[in-house]
């Protein structure tokens, strides 16, 4: 039972994933509000856009941590999402500020549905990842 770098990575990832879960929930709520007309898309995009990059960076950050810790399986599980984030950000609409969401197209039913689905999928992924990291952390702590 030793507190290794790997165990630290898992603990950090655990905490950060908890944050990401909040991000995902926030995202889902925001799009639900859009769909039910509670919010103006301009305001909503203004609140959502600043959160996009932090989310991606947090995720990328602990991916790098796992890389350093040589946790290949965990890294492999996270690679698809990382790749998706990179692709998503590359194909964002033309905009000067950071972020992904364009208030003029966000109300398009296809995009709205896509964003909602994306939110749910991410939430599921982060939840599973959360328990996986918990397991991973305990496993590392116990086995070393």
């Amino acid at each position, binding site marked *: 039972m030793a507190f290794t770098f790997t165990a630290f990575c898992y603990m950090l990832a655990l905490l950060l994933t908890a944050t990401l879960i909040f991000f995902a929930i926030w995202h889902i709520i925001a799009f639900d509000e*859009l*769909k039910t*007309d509670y919010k*103006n*898309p*301009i305001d909503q995009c203004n609140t959502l856009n600043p959160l996009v990059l932090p989310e991606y960076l947090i995720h990328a950050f602990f991916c790098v941590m796992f890389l350093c810790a040589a946790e290949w399986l965990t890294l492999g599980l996270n690679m698809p999402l990382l790749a998706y984030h990179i692709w998503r950000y590359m194909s964002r*609409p*033309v*905009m*000067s500020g950071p972020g992904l969401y*364009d*208030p*003029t197209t966000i*109300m*398009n*039913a*296809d995009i709205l549905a896509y964003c909602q689905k994306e939110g749910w999928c991410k939430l599921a992924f982060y939840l599973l990842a959360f328990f996986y990291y918990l397991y991973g952390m305990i496993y590392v702590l116990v086995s070393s």
Partner: protein
Amino acid sequence: MSAPAGSPHPAASAQIPPKFGGAAASGAAASADPGSAPHQQNGPAQNQMQVPSGYGLHHQNYIAPSGHYSQGPGKMTSLPLDTQCGDYYSALYTVPTQNVVTPSTANQQPGAQQMYSRGPPAPHIVGSTPGSFQGAASSASHLHTSASQPYSSFVNHYNSPAMYSANSSVASQGFPSTCGHYAMSTVSNAVYPSVSYPSLPAGDTYGQMFTSQNAPTVRPVKDNSFSGQNTAISHPSPLPPPPSQQHHQQQSLSGYNTLTWSAPGLPSTQDNLIRNHMGSLAIANNNPTVTGVDSSSTTSSASPMPNSYDALEGGSYPDMLSSSASSPAPDPTHEPDPAPAPAPASAPAPAVPQPSKMAKPFGYGYPALQPGYQNATAPLASVVQPSNPVYSGFQQYPQHYPGVNQLSSSLGGLSLQSSPQPESLRPVNLTQERNVLPMTPVWAPVPNLNADLKKLNCSPDSFRCTLTNIPQTQALLNKAKLPLGLLLHPFRDLTQLPVITSNTIVRCRSCRTYINPFVSFIDQRRWKCNLCYRVNDVPEEFMYNPLTRSYGEPHKRPEVQNSTVEFIASSDYMLRPPQPAVYLFVLDVSHNAVEAGYMTILCQSLLENLDKLPGDSRTRIGFMTFDSTIHFYNLQEGLSQPQMLIVSDIDDVFLPTPDSLLVNLYESKELIKDLLNALPNMFTNTRETHSALGPALQAAFKLMSPTGGRVSVFQTQLPSLGAGLLQSREDPNQRSSTKVVQHLGPATDFYKKLALDCSGQQTAVDLFLLSSQYSDLASLACMSKYSAGCIYYYPSFHSTHNPSQAEKLQKDLKRYLTRKIGFEAVMRIRCTKGLSMHTFHGNFFVRSTDLLSLANINPDAGFAVQLSIEESLTDTSLVCFQTALLYTSSKGERRIRVHTLCLPVVNSLADVYAGVDVQAAICLLANMAVDRSISSSLSDARDALVNAIVDSLSAYGSTVSNLQHSALMAPSSLKLFPLYVLALLKQKAFRTGTSTRLDDRVYAMCQIKSQPLVHLMKMIHPNLYRIDRLTDEGAIHVNDRIVPQPPLQKLSAEKLTREGAFLMDCGSVFYIWVGKGCDNNFIENVLGYPNFASIPQKMTHLPELDTLSSERARSFITWLRDSRPLSPVLHIVKDESPAKAEFFQHLIEDRTEAAFSYYEFLLHVQQQIYTQSGYGFA
């Protein structure tokens, strides 16, 4: 599940009325029901709507909600009514005919009218009152004509079913039938006596009206039905046309209907009424803003008013229109009839899958009934029975369309079910049919509703759906592979529009739907919303009908009688006091702009139209110019001359004197005029080549944000300084690339953000781009797209070198400056529960799922909406769509314009195909393709377009099992689909392989997004006419002018002969192509040159020559021009001149280097279908 075409099952055969007769048949069936006897008044009521249109003042004739269309919609062959109706009648038709897209309800209207008219005659005969009719007929005054005409029509109609079928079959083949209507009229005359209608003279008149003997196809019915008001309009006689019109007009609102019948016999009554009308009219004139004329005694009032701009905004009515302004007048004949007052249970709800024609006891209570029904009912009831035999004659009728689930039950006794398949489902072998294009314009199909609903339905000019039969489930829609969506033209110029002033605007409490003709009244006190099905209370105020001054008849209120109405909104509908009209002009004055010389034209136009700018006494106006600096003009009242203030700090723009830059138009008029006179010459020697558009727009935004309003930006080059500067992105070598077209999207989001800011401050930005080189319209257009502005583009504009563009700018400006405008608008589109909005197309900002924010709304803006079916619609037989446009008029009034469209729901694939509105579908597809090319790529969009045909035709092929699989089959309703898609693929926006400048392409895309359907269709598929041999055959009359109606030619060089001259109408531009061997007579008499060689290369006007052929050509072109808001430019193109490429690129059926010919395209589609089905069957 899918009934094969031709199935005897009623649902399967329920179709769009393929032709007139079809409508008539269903109408006949309707009136066979005793309960519907009261409908007899419908005919006239519909006519009423058309009256105003006859005035011809507005090209966009408003056809009142009930629709009435002069043309048979379903039939592509429908020929202008003019062929049969003579001088009198044609004038009326002119207006509808001008609109390419015509109202389709017409069909059924005439039908309805006729059959309804059937009723009344009988009583007359029976009651031995023929004498009065005789008198009427013989006196032959216009009044009488209007009354008696229906008889003749009735006669035609009922006695010659065989004739109809003959005609229709001919028509459907697209061949001219030369004798049809002749036979008709003969028959009518012959039959007359036997039916013993004394009004024979009317029939004679009718007979004499024919101007042409060989009308290609026959539409016998409709002329008749409209004859009533026709006379009134175009006839030169001084005798009161207004009465009859007014009379008609009145009907839907004030219960005059019976007068149609009684008038001839009782001239004195009629006079009386006329006086009433006139009286109230005068009030309306005096006090135009008080729309409820007799508001003195009421809390609410309503009156139909002509919607000429002035009238609406409170100006005085033009004289001509005045007669169409009807207002509530006491109805002497009305008082006695409440006897058959509404039975308590009066719910023929649209939502209730019950035939809307009620059994007699309920008939009175039907909310959709015209007010006047009750008058007629009593006498008519006895007639109904006798008339039944006549209806049975319709069994032979080739097409009839029993309502989806509704009519069939009620028609059971009439054995109408066993009819052959409807025309719109007739399979057409596309590869073999050489002439798919009809000779006459294609009209919108009429939704397959029962007669009452049809009559009330919204005009297809304002509101169209791609599928007039809505599929029950998304699965069925997916199976049909057709786009489902709405095409809207909500702020169209209307000639007549009921305007309602009321303290409480009645709306559904849960979904906020405005009360409309398709709601059902459960009893007197409650109504059921047709969108969410909630039961609402009828407010006390609504119980009183200001038009009839009667109490307890909520279903007769104008809101419930018209599907297009306008409410004057109370302060509940305002977030702030209504804003004044504010106009700001932002002008490019760099070297490039001065060189192009647009300033002279603009200033001149402004000076001319300064007084006509829409607005009230608060109207404000301001000017800014910019090059590398920004110039403001202080026009504060009291200054001796305009003061120019220069701001050179373009990185942080500020307003030098915020209060005096936007000034009151009337207080500072002299200064403004001084400035406009000085402006064109102020910058003549400028050396400044830079353009700081971005900072200028930021300044404009600051200036406008306290009030909102309209910013008009004139730009002549790429913005090169400050925020929003752009680089040239176009590679000229890629212009004709067949692969990738890049840079269709914006380069920066500066303009989009600015537009959103502007939109938030209720400011719209209109862009006039007049440039000779690439100006990155894709980026600049964003400023208008998202602020609900409009975009005008004049490529290679130069005031002297390119006079045709200069002339176009001048004319466009005139329209732009004087057209109606609505400020701080929002538009909400609601639809029946189960349907939902998917995507919107047009210039606006989408603020929530069904709410569009429109800083400005103009009458030339069109919108499209894609729909999806979220829940199955099994528990309803009708769906409704409602758009509500809330805006501030230029007079500072808050108004709500509401359109409601009602469509049937079907559950079989065949019905879905039968109801396709191919023009609407193609316009929606074009919109979707624009989105696709921007978000994905142009080639994706092109593939999607081709797939749209392949999918829908192969889906159709698999539903119709008995077809040869080798042939490319399409239902008749879809037969133009491949042609239109090919036209789209060859349109500037989507073409590849042909050199197309990026700005031209982007502009074409912008137009597709923002044009209303009528204009967009011309852009996609131009009309080609041969004009060197115009004759008066089939001519129509407009404002005392004879307008020839040459047949449409297909867009192929095979139709061009060297001996001819052809006119191509591409919407915004006209080409006249003169063949090398063209008859010298034509060149001399029309073009004014002795021979072909002497015609100059650049010719943009037809000289006014005093020859018959010149007159005909000019009246035809003028007539075409009048039908659109922006005057098109005319180019005369000689064969052999280099300009002819411009003309030939529009011949879309021909092969080009880069694109298929129509036939090749069909083979390509067939190939694709074959490949697809190959997988399916293997």
